[in-house]
C-alpha cells in the first residue's frame, strides 16, 4: 500500500507538470543534495537541539509540578484555573509575545516556547496518574511507614510512569510542531527557517525537500520514542497481560 501511494505520487506529479509540485524523483534528488549531508549540521542539528531541550525541560517540569499537584487537593484547586487556561491557549498566539518578552529569536526563545507548551500534556497526565493511584498501594506504603522520598521515588513515579509516558508521546509531537512554527516565524537557522526561505525565494525543490525532511523527522522521532517506550514499559505490558479485564 505505501508503495502504491509513492508510485501514484510519482506518476501524478510527472503527469501534472506543475512547477509547484515537482516530480517525486526530483524531490528525492534535491533531498539527497541538501540534507545528506551538506546542510545537516547548519540546520538539522540546531532544530534537533531545540526539540531535545524543549522536550526535556517541558517534560521534567511537567512531572515536577504534576506530582505535588496530583497529591495535594489544595494545590490542585489553586492550580486548576491556570492549567485549564494555558492548556487551551493556541500556542502560535504566544509566538510574537515570546519574541518580545524574551527579546530574542535564538535558542532561548525557541526552547522556552517549546518547553512551555510541552509541559501541559505531561503535566495533565501526571496529575491524572497520581490522583488515580491505587488505594491499596497507598495503604501498603502507609502500613510499612515508607518515608516520603522513597514513596515518591520508588512507588508514585513508577506507578504513574505509563501515563506519564503517554503524555510524553504527545509532547514530543507537539515539540516538533512548535519547533517548525517558531523557526518559520522568526529564526536565523533551522529546518523551519529553511522552509520559510525556500518558499520566499520560490525554490520549490529545496522547499519540498524541507517538507519531506520535516515529515521524516517527525516520523523518526516518534519511532525512536516508541522504541524507548517498549523497553521502559516492558513490565507494564507484561503486567497488563496477566490482569483479567
Amino acid at each position: 500500500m505505501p508503495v502504491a501511494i509513492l508510485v501514484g505520487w510519482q506518476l501524478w506529479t510527472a503527469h501534472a507538470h506543475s512547477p509547484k509540485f515537482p516530480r517525486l524523483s526530483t524531490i528525492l534528488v534535491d533531498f539527497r543534495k541538501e540534507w545528506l549531508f551538506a546542510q545537516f549540521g547548519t540546520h538539522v542539528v540546531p532544530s534537533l537541539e531545540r526539540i531535545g531541550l524543549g522536550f526535556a525541560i517541558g517534560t521534567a517540569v511537567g512531572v515536577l509540578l504534576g506530582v505535588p499537584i496530583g497529591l495535594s487537593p489544595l494545590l490542585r484547586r489553586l492550580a486548576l484555573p491556570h492549567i485549564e487556561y494555558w492548556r487551551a491557549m493556541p500556542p502560535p498566539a504566544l509566538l510574537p509575545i515570546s519574541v518580545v518578552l524574551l527579546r530574542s529569536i535564538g535558542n532561548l526563545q525557541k526552547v522556552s516556547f517549546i518547553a512551555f507548551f510541552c509541559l501541559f500534556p505531561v503535566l495533565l497526565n501526571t496529575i491524572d496518574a497520581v490522583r488515580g493511584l491505587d488505594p491499596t498501594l497507598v495503604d501498603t506504603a502507609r502500613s510499612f511507614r515508607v518515608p516520603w522520598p522513597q514513596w515518591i521515588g520508588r512507588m508514585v513515579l513508577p506507578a504513574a510512569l505509563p501515563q506519564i509516558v503517554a503524555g510524553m508521546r504527545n509532547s514530543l509531537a507537539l515539540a516538533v510542531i512548535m519547533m517548525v512554527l517558531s523557526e518559520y516565524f522568526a529564526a536565523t537557522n533551522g529546518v523551519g527557517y529553511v522552509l520559510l526561505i525556500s518558499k520566499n525565494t520560490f525554490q520549490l525543490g529545496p522547499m519540498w525537500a524541507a517538507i519531506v525532511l520535516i515529515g521524516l523527522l517527525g516520523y523518526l522521532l516518534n519511532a525512536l520514542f516508541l522504541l524507548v517506550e517498549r523497553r521502559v514499559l516492558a513490565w507494564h505490558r507484561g503486567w497488563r497481560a496477566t490482569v483479567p479485564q
Partner: protein
Amino acid sequence: MLEINDLGKTYGSGDKATHAIGNVAFHVEVGEFACVVGPSGCGKTTLLKCIAGLLKPSRGEVLLRGRPVTEPPEAMALVFQEYGRSLMPWTTVRNNVLLPLRHKKLSQSERTALVDEAVAAVDLTRFLDHYPWQLSGGMQQRVAIARALAYQPFLLLMDEPFASVDAQVRGDLEDLVLRVHEQFGITTLFVTHDIDESIYLADRVIVLAHAPTEVKEIVPVALPRPRDQIATKALPEFAELRTHVHRLIRHERREEEVAPAPIATTHSEPTHA
C-alpha cells in the same frame, strides 16, 4: 500485646450515619494466633484498618504494647487481600520484599539477609528475580507474606489474604502461615470470612456480629498443634467448633435467637441406636 477497647467507627452524621463498627473490644496475647470471623459486610476490613492505624476510629482506642495506635505503628506489618494491587509490578520480587526495609536502620548485608530468609521461609527463593505478575496468585500472596516477615514486625495483620486465591492453593497457604507462625513466633491477627479456615488456624476465634459490628463471642480453639489439613479437620472437636461458629454467624444473618448450647446438633450422632 494488642488491646482493643470500645472501638467504634461511624461515617457521616445525623440520620445518614453509617455505623461501620459499633463497639468492638478484645485483646490478643503475645505470640497468639487470633482469627476474626464474621459475615460479609460486617466491617471486618474497617476494623482491621482501624487496628492498623490506617483509619482513625470515631470512638475507643487501640493499644499496641501499651501505646495507643494513631498511625501505622513501626512494630506492625499488614498483608492485604488484593495482592496484585499491593505488590509493585514494576520491580522484582526481591525489591518488593526489600522496599519496607530500606528505611530501617540496617546495613545493606543485613537487609539482604532478611530478604533471603523471608523469601526462603515462603519457598520462593527460585523466584527472587522474577516480576510479581509472572507468578501465580498464591505465589504472589506468598511474596506479600515474605515482605511482611522481612519487616520483622511484632504484630502481623492479615486481611482475608486467601480470599482471592483458589481453593486448592488456599490449604497450602494456610499451612505456610502456620509454619511461619511456628518458626518466627509473631503475634498474628487473621481476618477471614471462611469459618473452617478461622478454626483451623487460630488459638482463639473472635466472632463478630453483624452491623453494628460487635464481638459476639470469643471462642477458644483448643485443637492440638501442629495442625494438619486432614487429621485436624477430622477431629470431632473441629466439627463442634465449626458448628458453633456457624450457628453464631447464621443467627446473625437470619436475626433469630441462637441455640443456647452447641450440643443440640442437627448432624447425625456418631453412635446409632
